[in-house]
Structures are given as structure tokens and as C-alpha cells.
């Protein structure tokens, strides 16, 4: 992707929008996860949406620009690994209790605390884990491809 600058810099509107887009996308993602068990959407879709919101920043600002503007992106690998670990933990914790993996708590039929559509039980952790993993992985991918070539060299 072309870094913003001398050759065909994106105009100010694009740059502002690109910088602001990740914020609202997080809200959409949160919504998808919250009502995931009841309606369309899950952690995976939420993760891709956030990554899609990050992608225009790479187009508009260039890899260096976006990483300067959103230094938090630097933690993408850690987010990916952490998400995977969270998801694996949510799947395998029953082994410690002597149950088969991916048996969720509260168990089927038991009472679940609900906040609106959001249900508080262990599959939620799996969903959040998948969400973090997808955001992290796709951001790493954007970072890998978004660098100007002269820096990406060996």
C-alpha cells in the first residue's frame, strides 16, 4: 500500500475518517459479541469488522503513519496470542474439573445471569478470545503487507 504523502496523498476527510473509524467499529463488535448467542454474529465476525476498520488507516496514513497515530496497534501480536490462550482456556478448563473439554459453565439447564441479550457464561470467553485473536492476526497481516518495501527488506 502506498504511504500517504507526496505521491497522491489522500485528502483530509479520508484521513480523519480513517483515524476515527476504529472507535465506532469497536462498538459494533461489542454489540455483535453481546448478542452473539441470540442473534446473528459472533466473535469472529466482530474481529474481522474491527480489522476492516483498521485497514483504511493503513491505506490513508501508511504503515508508519498509522502506527504513530495508533501506537496501541503495536500490541497486536500479544493480543492475538492472548486471545488464543483465553479461548483455549475457556475450552480446556473443564479438564481440571474432571469433565470433558468444552463443557461450559453454567451447565445446560442451569440459571444464567443475563444483562439484556448478553449472557454471562463461559462461551462468552471463547467468543472474546476468538475476537481478540482475529483482530490481532489481521492487524499483524496488515502490518506485514502495509510496510513500504524498502523497509521490509531482508
Amino acid at each position, binding site marked *: 500500500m502506498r504511504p500517504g504523502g507526496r505521491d497522491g496523498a489522500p485528502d483530509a476527510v479520508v484521513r480523519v475518517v480513517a483515524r476515527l473509524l476504529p472507535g465506532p467499529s469497536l462498538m459494533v463488535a461489542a454489540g455483535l459479541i453481546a448478542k452473539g448467542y441470540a442473534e446473528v454474529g459472533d466473535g469472529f465476525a466482530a474481529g474481522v469488522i474491527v480489522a476492516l476498520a483498521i485497514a483504511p488507516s493503513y491505506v490513508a496514513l501508511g504503515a508508519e503513519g498509522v502506527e504513530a497515530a495508533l501506537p496501541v496497534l503495536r500490541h497486536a501480536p500479544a493480543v492475538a496470542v492472548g486471545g*488464543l490462550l483465553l479461548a483455549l482456556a475457556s475450552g480446556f478448563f473443564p479438564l481440571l474439573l474432571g469433565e470433558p473439554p468444552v463443557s461450559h459453565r453454567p451447565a445446560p439447564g442451569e440459571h444464567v445471569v443475563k444483562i439484556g441479550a448478553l*449472557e454471562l457464561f463461559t*462461551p462468552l470467553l471463547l467468543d472474546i478470545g476468538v475476537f481478540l485473536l482475529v483482530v490481532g492476526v489481521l492487524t499483524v497481516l496488515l502490518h506485514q503487507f502495509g510496510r513500504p518495501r524498502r523497509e521490509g527488506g531482508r
Partner: protein
Amino acid sequence: MVVIRGGAAPPGAGQRHRGSAVDWPGWLACAAALAGFALCLLGWLAGGGAFALPWAPSLDLELSFALDGLAVLYGLLATGVGALVFAYGTRYLSLHLEHQRRQAVERWRFWPWMALFAVAMVGLATAQDLVLVFVFFDLTAVCSYFLIGFDRAEREARTSALMALLVTVVAAVAMLVAAVLLYAAHGTFSIPELLARAAPSATTTLAAALLAVAALAKSAQVPLHFWLPRAMAAPTPVSAYLHSAAMVAAGVLVIGRVHPLLARSEAVLTGLLVVGAASVVVGGVLALRRDVLKQVLAYSTISQYGYVVMMYGMGGAAGNGAAAFYVLAHGVAKSALFMTAGAVTMATGEDRLSRLGGLGRRAPVLAVAAGVASATLAALPLTVGFFKDELLFTAALRHGPTTAVLAVVAAALTFAYVGRFWGALFLGPPRGRVGSTPVLLVAPVVVLAVIAVAGGLVVEPFARLAEDAAGVSAGGPVALSPAYHLDARAENLMALAAWAAGGALLALPRVVDRVSRAVAVAGERAGPRRAYEMAVHALNRASTALHDREVRDLRTSIAAVLVPAGVLIGLAFAATPTAGAYVVGAVVGADWLILPLLALVVIATVVIAVAKARLAVALALSVVGFALAAVYALVGAPDVALVAVVVETMLTLVFVAALARMPRAAPERDAGAPARVRRRRRDAIAGGVAGVAVFASVWGFLSQPAPDSVSAEHIRLTPAAHGSDVVTVIVADFRGLDTLVEITVLLVAVVGVATLARRRLW
């Protein structure tokens, strides 16, 4: 071990110095083996014991161990001989590495395997579950692979290691098959239960024969014996251990463990007898004329375990008792002889009998100790070996005259090759230079010689060990009464006859030479080793040819997946009835929206096939994706549609970004126009086969939706899982394990991409 290698000593003079430092991992293994020996002994004196842990209860697998007589015998052998061999190895390995100018840290590639070898043997000896036995059985093979191939710079060592692994592991599959057969018939893997339940039947016979095949390959019996002489490429401590107490002993151990099962069928016992006798003769005759020290001993091992297999074939209390006793006496003698060979080679730098001689004067202690070990193997009085042959003769006499003659022949051959081995080494005119022999290379041989003589004087402890072990194999108490009898009983006469015949063989080297050479040549020409090598070469060639075809370029590797898949689907369709399988349904409602979308997909696909510009291909691909996402939404799969849309968007972006990183100029086309035409035709055929197959299978599937599919069950259970969106519940709960694996793959994939693109994650 990688970590340890990473922390290797800095190159330079320092290493040499470190090479001579104390080999503490070796001593640690030695101490562990000694502790194991003490535990086995205490356990035996305390009357044994057993414990079981659940392993995989849903498959009826148990980690069940018991210290019975057989376990004690092999456990003591593995740990006792192990401790001595390990002590010997601490010195031997240091010298070996020094000679080859290798770093002392390579010990770490040796001792863990050695220790695991010992652990696997003890585990095998005590395991009471057939699958567990299989696991330990293969574990010894894996250990032997790494140990035989320890000198990995040498081609010989590598091929030998592979041969040992292939022959024993492939044969071991027979054991697994037998376990499954028995489980299917009797519903248990537990050996004691199987022995109680299995009645004589065709299944029992088949399973017993399969178990015997696995065990015989491990014990290097004819015709699967050829891996053992090659395995001599291993460092000497490995050979000593592998021949006397580990790997090869594992085979007869398994026979002893499941012997009551084998004894259910007369045919299997006769088979054992025949294979054992053949091994005795082939091994013995070939051992008579080998020149390399360790080769003589290797063929002798084939012959000696042939005895044991023969005795198990005789069966009954006498046969089982004699077999157990034989394993014990042989283990002591053979490990001593191997360590002798190693010590001689270390001292003189020679490993051939023809270049050695007259060492008796110059290394008297070793000569005497090796003499005792040889006498033990040759069954001379005053050694424990005398009783092994006495018991053999008793069992053979009880079995029949043919067996008795075979036993005498076997003993005569043993006498001859052992006599030749010792005589050529220690008698005659001095030959070769003799350096110093380190104490640690001689002391273990002396200890074993002392044990052999002690057993020759007081045989009771040995006999009791063998009685207890044979009790397990025979399925009832066994009484052995080995003793010296100064009278003309049949056993004594047979022993005298064997010594006389052996002496005659020694006195007639020319005749022996000719016979042995003829057997060796016949073995080279038409032997099983040749068959093995041809099979391995043919497999190699087939695999290479297939590989070359598959990876020639991107198209062929895609075709390698699509074309076979298409052909297989085609075959499946040809084999299934087609009546009513392909229905053209009515087009109603939303279908009118789907049809133009599918037409769009078709157009985009054609564009992908003919477009020259990369960007056009990428965009056409995304058109296909979005059109299909719209189809999902229309057929009532909004979850899939949402994911398809977002993923397709992302994919297009990544695609375009990746294209931007590629060189602008297109790769040069090869000039050969006819080749291009041929390739284009081939592409069309490959695409056609794959496409038609997919089309037919999708059509067939949509024509006959399964009436009570698993999805109905998913929908029924979704409320119980606190959800109302089936897809999410499937992903997170019903098929949660799949999801966990898939997301792990996702991370692994991105690490791969990042490493390829920039060699780091960020």
C-alpha cells in the same frame, strides 16, 4: 536437547579438556539403573505387587503394571546389566567422542536415550495391558533408532538405524492387530484377563501368530534377523545392552508374557520351534566365519535367542523354565563379551579377528574375565552357563528325539564360534599394538564374570528367578533343579557330544569356512535383506516420482489435490445408484434472485480463467465471494453471509496489498509455444474433472436432503445450551473443540506468513 546443543561449549581447545571430564549424565543413568535394580530385587523378595491407573477408560485401556516373576527377571536384567553397561559407557563414550573429534556435549544425545531404553524395558516387563505392552515395545525401537544412529555422520549408521526401526516397528504392527482382534473377541486388553478368557479358536490362533511375528522380528529371528548384524554400527555400550537385556530381549519377553495364549495352538508352538531352530543354525553357521568382532557376537545373538524361541516352542514347564534361565545366563555372558570386544577395539584400534591375537599375555585380567564369559556361553561346568544347557537338554529330551538332536547341534555350534572368538583374540602369536585399557572398560566384564562363576557354584538364586518367571509363562508353578550330576545321564552325554562336535568344528577350519561362506553368499543373493532393500528402494522411487509430478509448479500442486478428489468422487458416484439422485426442482420465490447471482459467479469465474492482469483476477475472485455471500443470505444463513462478507472484504484488501508487493514485471513466458498449448489443455482437463465432480456431488446432495440430519438435533438442543442462534452455539459449544483447533491454526498460519514476509512477527 536443542536447547542444550544451543548452549554448547565454545569451540577451541577447551573442548578437548572437557571431553575427558567426568561424564556425569552417564553416572546419573548408572545410579538410576542401580536404584532400579535394588527396587526390583526388594520387590521380588517382598513377593511382587501390582497397581493400575485408568488411562483411557472409554477404550478400556489401563496403565496396569505388575511385578510378577517374569517382570522381576527382565527388570533385574535390564537394570543390572544396564548399570554395568552404563558404567562402562561413561568411559567408552568419552573415548569414542574424543576419537571422532566430537564435542563432549553430544553425550546428551546418548544418555537420555539409554536411560529411556532401560525405562522402556522395565515398563515392558511389568506392563499387563496389551496396548501398553505395544507402546513400550515400540518405545524400545525408537530408542534403538537414535542409539544405533548415534554416529549420524556415517551413512552406515543411519541406514542401519532405519533398518532396525523399520523391521521391528512394522512387525510390531502385527502386535497391535492382535490386540485389536483379541479385544474384539473378548472385550479386554488386560493380559491376565485375556489369558483367562481366550479359549482355543481360530481368532486366538491368528492373534497368537501375529504376536509371535512381532516378537520374533524384535528378537532378530530368521527370516527377519538381518537388521541385527547391521545394528552393530552402534557404539559398543549400545550393542552390549541391546543384545543382552533390551531390544532383542524384548521379543522373547513378549513371548514369555503371552505364552499361555501361544500354547493354545499347537501350530504356533511348532512354528516357534521351527523358526528358533532355523535361527540357531543360520546364526551359528554365519557366526563361525565372521571376521569383525561385533559381527561374530551379533550372529551369535541371533543363534542364542533362537535357542530361547525353540524352548518356548517346546512349551510346558520344562521348556518355559529352560527359556527363562537361558535368557538370564545369556544376558550375563553376552553383555560381558560385547564389552570385551569394545575394550579390545579401544585398546588396539582393530576390530577384526584376523588382525588381533595373543592378547592373553598383555591383558590377562580381560582374558580371564572374557574366558569365563565365553565358557558361560559355551556351557562349560563351573559357570552358570552349564545349567542353561542342562535345562535345554532336559526340555529337548522331553519334547522328542529330533529336538534333542537339534539341541546338541546348537550347543556344538555355540561351542565352536565362542571358542574361535576367544581363541583368536587371546591365544596365538601377539598381533597388533596394544594401548592402555582403562579400568572402567574391564571392571564391568570382571563383575559379570564373577556373577557367572558364582551362578556356576551356587545356582539356587538363578534357578528361583527362572522358576518364578517361567511360572508366568507356563501358567502354573514350575520347578527347576539344575545341578551337577557325575553320572552318565542323557544330559551329560549330550553335553559331551556337543563339546566334542564343537571341538571338531574348531579343528576343521577349512570345511567350516566353506560351509559358512556358502551360507553367507546364499543369504546375500536371495536373503530377506535383499528383499528389504529392494522394497525400500522401490518405495523411494515411487515417492520421488509422485513428488516430482506434484510440485513441478503451482498448477500441478493444485491439480494434485483437485484431480484425485474429482476422480474419487466420480468413482463413488459410479458405484452408487442414481435413480432419483438428481432432481431438477421448481424455481420459486427468492430463487429468482439467486439465479442471477449464480450467473454473476459464472461470469466472474470465466474472467478469472482468461484474465491476464493480476488485479483483474483478484477483483473477479472477490466478485465470486460477494455473490456467494448474497446467496447465503437469501437461502437463510445470515450468520454465514455476515462472515462471508467481512472475510471477503478483508481478503480482497490483503490480496491487493500483497499484489502491490510483487514485482511489477510479469515473469517471462517460456518460449516453447507447443508446451504452453499442451499445458492449457491439461489445465482444462484437470479443471473439468474437478468441476464436474463437485457439480455432481452438490447436485446430488441438494436433490436428497437427509431427512433426520444432525442439524435437527442441533436445533433441538440449542435452547438447552442457553442460545437461540444455532450457528453460534455450534461453533462455541457443539463443535467447540473444532473451533479451538481452527483458531490455533489461524495463529500458526499468520506466524508463518510473517516469518516468510519479514522474518519477524511485528
